[in-house]
């Protein structure tokens, strides 16, 4: 299939970068860009394909990050097994939040607000209990080795996150071609019509939030492996939620390559502003916010769904604008 061969080419191209350079700056850039792609792709599954805008995806990110570090520090678990546990736990949290909010038919702004509130609850609780290290946070001891998922060069991390991005890409490609994906997009476009033809919107949305949460959790686990530190603000704060959602929306929601394009664009933009203005606090978030407003105003379908097609998209991309009534 075309999508999968495109993914294979992408993986080969990006995966070979560490063979051509061992410049820390380049590899760090690639790693952080891929990491941003992962977050945007995770959000895209629920937000872009499912039409459920979450403002609190940091919830899953934080759960993944904390599980990753807690299983290692408290239980002496191997990080590779911890990664699976982190993904699993984020999926469980996703299913709980999804079951609660979709059971009661929360939609649109209400869903956005309730996800934000859940993330806040987790942030406050993790600030207050002992096993998360409270406000001090948790440190992952430095023990470089492959079995410890800690690599002596950035290349290892690039391949690790590339693996996760590939997983997300394949999931998205599967959504584009599978029956489940068609159900999900039907629910997004018209829930009542989907129900009328026998799709169970609750089940479909629930599965979407579970998948989306699991991928987001893997992002959190990766973050902890790289930076070896997590605290409640980093884990559950709004910054990560925003990064995930802006990346997907800027690139184009409900598309395969949109989140990749979006995350990469934002990353380059943030780097350029950093080079222009120096290391100022908050400058990259100013850029993110401005780009978000401009994109919603002028290109509601995102960069890849806009006038200039960077990648050929056959399926219709969802538009966040609608004709005035």
């Amino acid at each position: 299939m075309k999508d999968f061969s495109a993914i294979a080419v992408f993986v080969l191209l990006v995966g070979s970068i560490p063979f051509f350079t061992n410049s820390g700056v380049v590899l760090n850039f690639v790693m952080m860009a891929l990491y941003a792609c992962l977050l945007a792709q995770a959000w895209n599954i629920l937000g872009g394909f499912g039409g459920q805008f979450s403002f609190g995806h940091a919830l899953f990110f934080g759960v993944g990050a904390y599980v990753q570090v807690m299983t290692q520090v408290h239980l002496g678990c191997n990080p590779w097994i911890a990664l699976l546990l982190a993904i699993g736990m984020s999926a469980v949290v996703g299913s709980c939040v999804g079951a609660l909010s979709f059971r009661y038919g929360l939609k649109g702004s209400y869903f956005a607000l309730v996800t934000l509130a859940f993330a806040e609850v987790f942030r406050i609780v993790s600030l207050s209990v002992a096993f998360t290290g409270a406000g001090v946070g948790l440190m992952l001891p430095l023990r470089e080795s492959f079995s410890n998922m800690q690599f002596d060069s950035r290349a290892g991390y690039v391949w690790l996150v590339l693996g996760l991005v590939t997983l997300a890409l394949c999931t998205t490609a599967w959504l584009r071609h599978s029956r489940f994906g068609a159900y999900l997009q039907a629910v997004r476009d018209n829930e009542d019509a989907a129900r009328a033809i026998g799709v169970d919107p609750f089940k479909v949305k629930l599965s979407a939030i579970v998948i989306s949460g699991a991928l987001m959790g893997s992002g959190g686990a990766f973050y902890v492996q790289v930076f070896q530190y997590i605290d409640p603000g980093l884990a559950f704060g709004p910054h990560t939620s925003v990064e995930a959602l802006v990346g997907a929306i800027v690139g184009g929601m409900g598309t395969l390559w949109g989140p990749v394009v979006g995350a990469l664009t934002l990353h380059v933009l943030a780097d350029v502003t950093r080079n222009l203005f120096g290391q100022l606090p908050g400058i990259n978030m100013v850029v993110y916010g401005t780009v978000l407003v401009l994109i919603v105003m002028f290109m509601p379908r995102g960069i890849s769904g806009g006038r200039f097609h960077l990648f050929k998209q056959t399926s219709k991309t969802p538009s966040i604008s609608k004709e005035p009534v």
Partner: protein
Amino acid sequence: MFDLSILFASVLNGITTGAVYALIALGLTLIYGVLHIINFAHGASLMVALYGVYFLKEKIGLDPYLALPIVVPAMFAFGYILQRSIINRASHVKDENILLVTLGISIVLENLALLFFKSDTRNIETAYTLTTVNIGSAMIALPKLVAFVGALVVSAILLSVMRFTFLGRAIRAVAKEKHGARLMGIDVDHVYALCFGIGLACLGAAACFLLPAYYVNPMVGSGFVLVAFTIVVLGGMGSFVGALVGGLLVGVVESIGGLYLGESLGQVGIFIIFIAVLLFRPQGLFGARA
């Protein structure tokens, strides 16, 4: 367990905080009730107003309460322009769109503040900051009492404007049926912008009452965003009485939660109310079922 007098003081403290919450929530509920949009930039706008009050005090020595006639109109103008020039243009009518645009605005505002004012937490010194008043067995800080009275006065003014003036009638007409209102010759876009302006003007007033007993930093607004949403959802989206009652209620819950669970965990009570109301009674206490 705790002494009853401590509980009484805590409730009193909660009510005074709750009145300011109510004022913030009133602006939010007005914007929601009329424009049917959720203004995510509400917290960031409050932060802007707080900085305004702060710099008026620091640079020209203007007392926060005397800053009211400057900050309130300034916030009104800010809101009017914001709605007319950005939000209305980007809206394309769809709910999620405005959510994203206001989210974008709040990110920009907060991080611009971070850029210019750094992340320092600042507060102001006034002669009455530490003055307390005795009410029964409880002591209460004078600025909080002033904030309580001020918030109630502003709410009363807002409610009577909505109830008794032509502007209020026009706003209610637009809220109910905007096409009908347009046919009656009401400039709907103008009313929208006015509402947004009034909503932010409430924040201006709230900022003047808050600052003598509070502080300001670039992220101060985000703490209020969810609280204000909780109140609006609790009271019923678009209901003024609901916002007032909800504000006082949330203030008390926060204060008692803080007493029993400790300062940081006490906040959880608010979010649990929020989630529970959203799930089980999304129309709120005073809202009509849609």
